[in-house]
């Protein structure tokens, strides 16, 4: 018996040190500016400020088997464009809603810190549409409809650059096609010697030079009335690549940094206040076990915060609400245990036995009831938009971790106290109800 007690107490002390160490990690990783331990909490856009955009991709023109590939290349193109914009840590992800033929494909773009959307929206969705056209048989080229598509477009470009020729005052744009584009361009020039090849940008005719000879090296030049600025923008956009799939914006959310910071500060304050009220209530009502519950709750909070950093979980206002709610759920497991403990004590068992039996009995209730909350959380995660997913994730995590801390931490600490002899003091410490107010029920 004494050996068992020693072991339990050793475990309890070890647990306490482990929790303190983890707590230090949570604190240190927030303040460390560099290195391996620089792991600050990841804040969602609603707390840090920024924009959240959802684009719907029109995949109707793409064969079902190739949609995933098209979406991932879309993601890459958009990522390149956003990098030009200079946003730190943008998040771009493809998402599928629904299944099978009716599935819609979406691209989610998160731009931290960006609240003026006009420029960003233009950069993301605007594609220079470069086309090479030839004269229709018998047409004169006087109207635009005289030109027909050749299949050679900006997507076969490898690189575009601005050229300054000495004979010409304005800049020109030199194009390098990729191998596929070079082949198409060679065929096009070969079959149109003496004829014009028209170059269209966004449906506007730029120039229509007459082909002198077959061009096999995959190089072309556009001369036109560009200003230097126009030429540079065009070249940049051509180099960023055309969108493989047409997209349109279906949802946008912008949150200013001050509103986000305010929501964060208030959420943390509400959480701390709620925690203080609950902790004092637990100690006043359950006395010594109540104190154990508060310690256990402390371990729970440290574990959760560490997991938020390590997984990492992006914290949103709803996520913080979920975490605050999970504190209540964590307390519930303790309440269940203490009520059982009290019943076992009333049957005349020793504290040690009562603790062991109380836990065994309470565990079934804790497990069964928490699983039902977990079902809700999982469904929420599936249903949710990113904001709700944050709530569901913190709640689900909270349910699992609180079950763990209740059966390990609370149990170990209660056993470690290990009062053997009943005295006036111990029966006071282990009964419940407010002082001098006996629990009637």
């Amino acid at each position, binding site marked *: 018996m004494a050996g068992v007690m020693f072991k339990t107490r050793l475990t309890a002390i070890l647990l306490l040190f482990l929790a303190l160490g983890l707590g230090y990690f949570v604190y240190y990783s927030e303040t460390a500016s560099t290195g391996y331990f620089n792991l600050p909490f990841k804040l969602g856009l*609603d707390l840090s400020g920024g924009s959240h955009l*959802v684009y*719907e991709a029109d995949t109707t023109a793409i064969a079902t088997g190739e949609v995933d590939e098209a979406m991932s290349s879309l993601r890459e193109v958009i990522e390149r464009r956003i990098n030009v914009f200079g946003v730190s840590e943008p998040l771009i992800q493809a998402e599928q*809603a629904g299944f099978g033929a009716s599935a819609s494909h979406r691209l989610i773009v998160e731009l931290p810190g960006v*609240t003026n*959307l*006009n420029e960003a929206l233009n950069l993301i969705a605007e594609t220079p549409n470069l086309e090479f056209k030839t004269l229709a048989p018998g047409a004169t080229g006087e109207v635009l409809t005289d030109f027909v598509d050749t299949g050679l477009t900006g997507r076969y470009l490898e690189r575009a650059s601005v050229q300054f020729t000495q004979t010409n005052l304005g800049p020109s744009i030199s194009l390098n096609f990729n191998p596929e584009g070079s082949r198409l361009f060679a065929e096009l020039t070969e079959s149109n010697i003496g004829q014009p090849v028209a170059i269209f940008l966004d449906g506007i005719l730029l120039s229509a030079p007459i082909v002198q000879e077959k061009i096999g090296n995959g190089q072309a030049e556009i001369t036109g009335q560009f200003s230097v600025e126009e030429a540079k923008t065009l070249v940049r956009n051509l180099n960023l690549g055309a969108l493989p799939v047409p997209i349109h914006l*279906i*949802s*946008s*959310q*912008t*949150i*200013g940094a001050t*509103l986000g910071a*305010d*929501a964060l500060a*208030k*959420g943390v*304050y*509400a959480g701390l*206040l*709620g*925690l203080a*009220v*609950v902790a004092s209530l637990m100690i006043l009502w359950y006395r010594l076990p109540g104190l154990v519950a508060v310690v256990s709750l402390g371990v729970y909070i440290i574990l959760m915060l560490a997991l938020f950093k390590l997984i990492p979980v992006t914290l949103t*206002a*709803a996520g*913080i*609400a979920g975490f*605050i*709610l999970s504190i*209540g*759920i964590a307390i*519930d497991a303790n*309440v*269940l245990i203490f*009520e059982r403990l009290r*019943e076992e004590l009333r049957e005349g068992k020793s504290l040690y036995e009562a603790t062991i039996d109380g836990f065994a009995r309470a565990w*079934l*209730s804790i497990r*069964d*009831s*928490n*699983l*039902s*909350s977990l*079902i*809700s959380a999982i*469904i*929420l995660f*599936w*249903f*949710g*938009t990113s*904001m*709700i997913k944050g709530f*569901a994730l913190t*709640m689900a995590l909270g349910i699992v971790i609180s079950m763990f801390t209740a059966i390990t931490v609370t149990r170990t600490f209660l056993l470690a106290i290990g009062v053997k002899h009943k005295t006036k003091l111990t029966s006071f410490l282990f009964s419940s109800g407010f002082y001098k107010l006996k629990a009637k*029920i």
Partner: protein
Amino acid sequence: MFVIKYRKIFYLISGLAVAASLGSILYFGLNIGIDFTGGTLVEVSYPATRPDLEAVRQAANQINLGSVTVQPTGEDGYILRLKTVSESEKDSLIKAVTLSADNVPAEERTNSIGPALGSELAQRGLMAIGLVALLIILYIAFVFRHVSRPVSSWKYGLIAIVALLHDIIIPTGVFAYLGAVRGAEVDALFLTALLTILGLSVNDTIVVFDRIRENLQNKVASHFDDVVGISLKQTFTRSINTSLVLILILLSLYFFGGTTTRDFALVLVIGMFVGTYSSIFLASPLLVTWQKWSEKRSTK
């Protein structure tokens, strides 16, 4: 146990509350937010004293962007709601509500959702509620599968669902009223709160049912209503303490938390309150009523 003895009174209280809530939903209607209908929401705040509500409303409705509703928020801001508009149209709206050059409003947040996305979210939300209810019946029927006498296990599940309906109708009714009084909106967070209530309130109900199961196995009493009464008595303190803790925490979130989660916390507070009520005063007594009713029918 007084709960079992006077169960009809408690049924009546529940019945009246549900009826009043349904009445409120029918009378006021639900104020469905842009999360589900699609639309644009812009929150602006004025550096100096905000201009008069009526002036802002007029200015916002004079530019051709359809009808714009204006609602005060916080100390110095307004929330503007309208159909889904583009970024440049939104900028023109903000320009329109800039009533004086030395009090230019700052755009605090904007949320724009296409109509198709909204209705998809609404559908998914309703599906989620249905799915949770279904999974909970199945789960309870499974957990209590060894308990078939005197009440079979699927009845525990069905009664838990009756309690759940009670628990989500009442907060929805209160919300319909709040929607009419101060423009509270049914949005994605509201639906999240309802789904959370589903989880937490059935959690409460299961703890009581769990005790009934244990007491049935231990044969603590010969009559079913006594078994339920004893089980209720044993779990009473726990139910009250747990929901008290949860409600206190949620009240702290309601009073001191951010504005975005305020209504969310309120729905949860109401849900927790009626959820605790229903697991003590509705679900368990209903088990007794059902058992007595089928007993009567079989002896006839």
